[in-house]
Structure formats: C-alpha cells, structure tokens
C-alpha cells in the first residue's frame, strides 16, 4: 500500500470540491429540505410524543428537557450521515458508474487530490446540514450561544472523520449493494448507542466502555457540551480522539482508494 505524501496534494483538490458543489447548487432547494425539516419532525415526535413519558433528565448538574438532550444528538447524527453517505454511495457512483475519476485522471489532477477533494466535499455537506439544522433548533430555543457556533468547526472535523470512514468502505466493497454491511454493523449501532437518545450511563458498564471507542460518542459529547454550555474536561479528550482519528483515517482512506483504483 502506498501512503500519500504531502507533496502529492495541491490546491487542485478544491477543483473536485468545486465540481460537486456546483452540482449541489443546481438542486439546492431539494438538498435544503431534509436538514430544515428533519429536526422539526424529531422535535415534534420526541418533544411532544416521547418527552411526556421521559420527563426531565439530569445533564451537567442541571435538569433539562428530553428534547433539549437529544437536539445535539440529532446534529451529530446529521454530521455522520451527510459525510458518510456522500463518500459511500455518491463517491462510488462517481468512481464506478460515471467514470468521473477516470475523466479527472486525464487532467493535471492526481488520484490523491481527487479522493481528498471528495472527502472535503462530504465534510462540507455536513457543515451545510449542521448550519441549517442549528438555525431551526436555535429558533426553537434549545441551544445556547455563543457555544453553539462551535458546532460548525465541529461539523467540519466530524465530517472529515466520517467522510474518511465512508471512503474506506468505498475502497473495500466489491459492489454498491455491499454498503448495507458497514451501515448495519457500524452506522446503525452508532446511531443508537453513542449517547444520542439516552445518556450512556444508562448502559451496563461494559457497553459504556465499548461506546468510548465509537467516534459518534465523542462527536455527541462535544456537540452537547458546546450547544448547551456544559463545559467539562471530557470535551478535551473527545476533541483529541476526533483529531487523532481524522488525521489517521484521511491518509488511510486515500491509500486504500489508490490501492483499489491503480492496477
């Protein structure tokens, strides 16, 4: 396996980003609907339907409503979904069916830049989604400012992490239908067991330990801390986890894609 070197990467990566962005912009009206509507649906369902049964819960020494508790979880899940689905299904279609990467390889771009550009774009989608969601949720009064503004750089970091994870899957799956596997075994368990919908303390000890290995757990921890202004030392640990994981997984994703495509 050939690891990418910094000398292989140039600003040309942004051309790939630009390509994807210009196509996203063509249908922005449709792309904007899910991040605007989804939080409203969840807040309605959980805030009206479920919260009455759950009541309040304690977080950071304060009593908060159940809806307030899950709002940062929703944002974190959106970061994960937007980036991961972009570099799995969408990148796979561009690579395999549309031969977009083939076309780009006949230009001054190299494969490393193309893959990096794809991941940057996927992270951008997370940022766009989080920005829109945050507006809606803030208007409903669930988030505190200015801490909530930190969700945007957090979306970039988490987006890059999940973009890299998705790209690694793309580099490894034989066909597009195989993405079901990492989704079923990785994404769905994370969605449920990363402290998104209930405090991790509710889980048995061994499961709490396991959850500490999941990237979404740390994303949720940071998102909740920032948007609800509950500052603790744990946040630094989670940030370190995300930074280290991202810095490892980004080059790994590039290397695996190079291994897949270059024969």
């Amino acid at each position: 396996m050939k690891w990418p070197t910094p000398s292989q990467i140039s600003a040309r990566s942004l051309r790939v980003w630009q390509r994807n962005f210009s196509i996203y912009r063509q249908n922005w009206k449709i792309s904007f609907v899910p991040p605007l509507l989804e939080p409203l649906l969840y807040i309605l369902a959980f805030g009206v339907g479920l919260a009455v049964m759950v009541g309040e819960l304690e977080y950071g020494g304060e009593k908060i409503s159940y809806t307030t508790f899950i709002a940062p979880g929703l944002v974190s899940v959106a970061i994960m979904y937007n980036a991961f689905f972009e570099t799995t299904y969408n990148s796979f279609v561009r690579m395999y069916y549309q031969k977009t990467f083939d076309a780009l390889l006949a230009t001054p771009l190299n494969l490393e830049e193309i893959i990096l550009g794809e991941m940057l774009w996927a992270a951008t989608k997370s940022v766009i989604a989080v920005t829109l969601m945050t507006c809606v949720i803030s208007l409903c009064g669930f988030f505190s400012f200015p801490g909530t503004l930190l969700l945007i750089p957090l979306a970039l970091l988490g987006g890059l992490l999940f973009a890299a994870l998705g790209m690694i899957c793309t580099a490894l799956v034989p066909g597009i239908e195989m993405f079901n596997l990492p989704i079923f075994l990785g994404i769905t368990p994370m969605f449920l067991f990363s402290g998104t919908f209930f405090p991790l303390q509710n889980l048995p000890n061994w499961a709490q330990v396991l959850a500490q290995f999941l990237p979404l757990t740390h994303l949720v921890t940071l998102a909740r801390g920032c948007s609800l202004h509950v500052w603790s030392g744990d946040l630094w640990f989670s940030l370190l986890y995300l930074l280290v994981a991202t810095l490892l997984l980004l080059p790994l994703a590039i290397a695996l894609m190079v291994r897949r495509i270059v024969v």
Partner: protein
Amino acid sequence: MPILKVESLRKNYGTLTAVDGISFDVQSGECFGLLGPNGAGKTSTIRMLYGYTPRDSGLLEVFGLDIDKGLREIKRRIGICQQEDSLDPDLSVRDNLIGYARYFAIPKPEAERRADELLGFFALQNRAKDKIMVLSGGLKRRLMLARALVNQPELLILDEPTTGLDPQSRQLLWEKLAELKKQGLTILLTTHYMEEAERLCDRLVIVDHGRILVEGKPAALVQERVGHSVLEIADPDQPLRDFLAREKCRVEDLGSRLLVYLDHGDELFLKLTREVRAEGCMLRPAGLEDLFLNLTGRELRE
C-alpha cells in the same frame, strides 16, 4: 525531438503480460496509429502514457519530459479521449466542457469561449443545453473529443474513437480528425478499423499480445507485405487449384474461399478468367485488412 517516445514498455496484470516490450515514437504533426485486435494491449499502453496505470518497466517521454518527473506538465499539454465515455451526467453538454476546463485552471471567460468554439466545430451548438443522458452514442463521442481539446493540447490521444458508432457518425468524426491533423495537431490513435487507419494514419504499428508485429507507413506496408492486389475466389474446384499451383501463386486457402496475393498487374486474373473460369472470381486492391489478418491470424478474439 519526437513528441512522444516509448521504449521497451512493459505491463503485467498478475501473471498476464498485457504489454510486452513496446517501442515507438510519434513525430510532431503526424497521426500515428496503434492497431491491434481486442486484448492486444492498446488501452494498457495508452493508460501508461498519462500515468493512469503505472508501468512495470520501460521509458516514456512526452514533449521531451520524463513521465516520472513531469507528469503534471505532460497532462496539462495533452488531450485524452478515453475508450469508455466518462462524460459528467450531472452537467449539460456545454457545462461538461466548461467544467473540464476548470481542471486545467483555464479562466472562466476563456473556458466559455473555447467551449462555444468546440461546440461549433463538432456541430453540437444545438445540443449545448442538453443533458448527457439524452445524447446518442455518436454525439457523446463528439463531446468526448471536444472535451479532450478544451486545453488546446499539443498531442491528442484517442483510444478507439469510433468503436460502436454508426457509419454517419464515424464519417463525421474522421472528417473532424482529418481537419485537426491539417491544423498541425499531433495525434496518437488506437483502432481496429482498418479504414480508419488507412484514412488518418501517416505511420502505424500493428500490435498483438502486447508486442509490435510491424511498423511503417500503411500503403508501403501493404505493398511490401501483401502485394498489389488480392484475387478472391469462391468455391474453388480442382482445375482451378491446379492452375494456381502451376502459376506458383501465393495462395491462402480458407476452405470454401481462396485468397491469391498478386504482386503486380492483372495478367494472372485475365488468364484465369479466360482459361479456367470467371464466375466467383474477384480482383481487388490489397489493403491494410489483408496485412492485419495475415499478421494477427483469423481466429476470434475475446
């Protein structure tokens, strides 16, 4: 200095040797052909020229630049029309050209000017706003070719540009390529259509199993290796075979058909039709196809 220099180029896929020591060069302003049946190694060779596929060994120089050192510069100055369509289905015809120009860092106004010029050249103006999905195979190929020219390349590389096209589209593409050649563009072309090679190529190589079998100018090669003309005889009988044996002709026996290679004139043909029989006998000029089939054999390929 040649525009492109290829020396002892090799490529293996596992145990399969796809390119087995190919050497040739392309001079400025010429159209050079890489002819070969399916699986001969044409695409593998082309892909190594622009770094898509790493080579196992051999030397590659484009514009005098070593490919390992100057790949970006090389890619900036060549145009590649790949065998498979790789147009962007999310963009319109015109935006495919403008979008592609971005990868070459061509400023937007200049890109728009070139896109419109190329749409005109390839008679695509009326389709400028169409999506790729609705285009026919011939239109897609024209757009692929237009896209390969958007960076005003000094060397145009075409991998089977007309495979699968209807005769009308093929004729149009040939006209356009001939026009580009006249403007002084250097072209490297792979094909297995002999008519294409005869019409466009100044020089060519015939490759099979990753090796070059012959190199030269098409007309001279045919004259040298096949002869002046070919006499085709359907349903040959014994008296006819005896006659050909007496005349000591070069005969290729395909069972129900004989091919007789003649070096000059039509005396033998006249004698045959006068003395033995006339029906089922046809005299035609020797062509590249005769040479190609003689060299690469008649058995079917993948």
